């Protein structure tokens, strides 16, 4: 059904626009004046002022690898994240854990773990899919580099960014 | 005006004039016509007839031709580009042109007064806008008003004709 919008009845002064235009100009001028006087403070001067302290816990920055509270790497190199990653940013080279190791039953560990940050779209699917809770999107957002190679985060860098994440599930630790 | 400038602009004007006819692409033709108008305006300016020169640009190049171009672009005439020259028509046209030029040269050479350099105008700067206005509104007031009414009638007619029938 057609619905007729009722137009407001404008007075003569509203119809000729000009007073309203002047009123609008006054509003914008007020903003300009306040800005010039430094009374409004809305934007931040990025590199000097940062919002890092206010980042929420769930902030999804760059993907990182984490260790548990014993300092053991959690990733078992199952490569699920490599498969799920939509832009194929992750590249894992799996290695096997020697049988004499305490964690031999884990079987695999990542020999190399590269995330190409120039491809990553911060979707968080890797975090979602990981069965070991080994990969997390943490609070780093300023990923820079001067070449493509610079933009690849290697395993050491990923652990450095990730740090430890205690109080998660512990599948592989020997029973206490 | 320096004769050099005259020759440059006259040559340009003729060249663009030829290109109006020769070009198969309507847009190119229209733009050549604009360029030709501009050169003509330059010739007027060279004769110190600023008013006519400026009006030439304002009316023809600035308004009429913009509308032309506008319509040509809207219609997007592709068929015109594919048409080839008709050799017979071309020859006929060349013949007529040659005849005209020959006639013109003959007449001018038989008319000695046309061969004299024109005595320079006394006034350095003519107030031509004022003079055109004065002449229009005093000596030619009636024709001027008549033309005004005619134009009015024409524009009313156009509006009536182009208005869609309201059912």
């Amino acid at each position: 059904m057609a619905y007729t919008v009722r137009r407001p009845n404008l007075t003569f002064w509203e119809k000729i626009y000009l007073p309203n235009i002047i009123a609008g100009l006054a509003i914008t001028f007020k903003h300009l004046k306040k800005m010039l006087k430094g009374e409004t403070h809305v934007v931040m001067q990025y590199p000097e002022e940062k919002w890092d302290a206010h980042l929420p816990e769930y902030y999804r920055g760059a993907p990182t690898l984490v260790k548990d509270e014993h300092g053991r790497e959690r990733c078992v190199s199952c490569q699920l994240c490599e498969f799920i990653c939509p832009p194929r940013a992750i590249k894992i080279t799996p290695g096997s854990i020697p049988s004499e190791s305490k964690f031999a039953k884990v079987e695999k560990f990542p020999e190399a773990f590269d995330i190409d940050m120039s491809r990553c779209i911060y979707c968080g699917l890797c975090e979602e899919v990981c069965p070991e809770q080994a990969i997390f999107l943490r609070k780093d957002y300023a990923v820079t580099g001067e070449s493509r190679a610079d933009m690849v985060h290697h395993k050491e860098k990923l652990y450095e960014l990730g740090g430890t994440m205690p109080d998660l599930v512990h599948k592989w630790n020997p029973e206490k | 005006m320096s004769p050099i400038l005259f020759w440059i602009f006259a040559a340009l004007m003729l060249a663009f004039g030829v290109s109006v006819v020769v070009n198969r692409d309507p847009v190119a033709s229209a733009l050549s016509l604009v360029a030709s108008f501009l050169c003509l305006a330059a010739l007027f300016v060279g004769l110190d007839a600023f008013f006519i020169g400026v009006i030439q640009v304002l009316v023809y190049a600035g308004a009429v031709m913009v509308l032309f171009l506008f319509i040509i672009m809207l219609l997007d005439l592709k068929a015109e580009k594919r048409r080839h020259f008709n050799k017979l028509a071309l020859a006929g046209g060349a013949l007529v042109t040659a005849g005209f030029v020959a006639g013109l040269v003959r007449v001018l050479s038989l008319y000695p007064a046309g061969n004299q350099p024109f005595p320079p105008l006394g006034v350095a700067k003519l107030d031509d806008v004022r003079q055109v206005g004065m002449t229009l509104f005093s000596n030619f007031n009636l024709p001027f008003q008549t033309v005004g009414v005619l134009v009015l009638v024409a524009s009313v007619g156009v509006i009536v004709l182009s208005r869609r029938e309201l059912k």
Partner: protein
Amino acid sequence: MELLNTIPWMLIASSVAKTLFLIFLVVLPIVSYTVYAERRVSALIQDRLGPNRTGFPISLFGFKKDLQLFLGGLGQPVADAVKFLLKEEFTPAHVNKFYFWLAPVLAMVPALSTLAVLPFGNYLFGQKMVVADVNVGILYVFAIASIGVYGIVLAGWSSNSKYPFLGGIRASSQMISYELSLGLSAVPVLMIIGNLNLSDAIQYQIDNGWLLLPFTDGKLTLREFLLWIPVLISFIVFTISMFAETNRLPFDLPESETELVAGYHTEYSAMKFALFFLGEYAAMIAGSSIIVVLFLGGWHVPLLPINTLESSMTPGGIALGFLHITAFFAKVIGILIFFIWVRWTLPRFRFDQLMKLGWLYLFEIALVNIFITAGIIALVK
């Protein structure tokens, strides 16, 4: 040889000098800093900061830090220009190459040509500060401005894609429509001045007070007071039409981003795009200059002495000459800032509203205004 003697070399030399001064030392810097002002003012109006980092890169020459002057970011236009020059000159495959290259030139040239008749200062070094002091000044400006539409139309058509084409169509119909009210609204002013020459327009305002502020000569006669009304109306109509002619918001339909990507220059990049940009801002400067000349007394500053041809060679006269040029461009910059201010205040019109405003209101108002002016001039001495 004889032909060469007919060429007035002195006149050409002084004209070229004035043109170069006007374009390269005045207009182009104003253009680039108008762009900067546009970005800064728009940002400040929206409670942002705008470009405030780019300084002059003197650190390239061994200084510790880049030079930052008061507000900061003043090096931005330079950086922009360098960027435009270094970018890839890309021509899409589907365009009509010749016209695609021609269009930016046609957009730029008329905008700069209008400046030829503007009296931007009084006498200086024994020269009148106007490139061509012709007796049809204002008509010349309108004529050249009406040529400016070709650049836009050709750009839209030759890009051979739909959004530029729509932009080009909008531009041409808009500019043709508003030329009428622009021309008609200037008529009352010309009737009052009684001449088309722009230098004479300024001379009249020196003798009788600026048209918009008729008390600048120290007195306000009844005639001036009555004429104030039509002048005010024609100032408003003229300014609005100027907004439409220069495709500025609220009338920037040819390039309205929300509907047409970028309108007629969607397919352009690098320096070709920059030429459109420059042309647009140069047209704005030309328009503002016309407003200044017709309504705000041109280079005239009340209470300041006026140079004559002789006194313009003395040191005091030279200072005064430069002062007048500065005054002129200060007024122009004021109007430009007003343009920017309006742009960031008002929303865009719809196309039918724009046409309605032009044809049904401004056109009629301008016409009636002519009659009012004629009546006042005839009745009140």
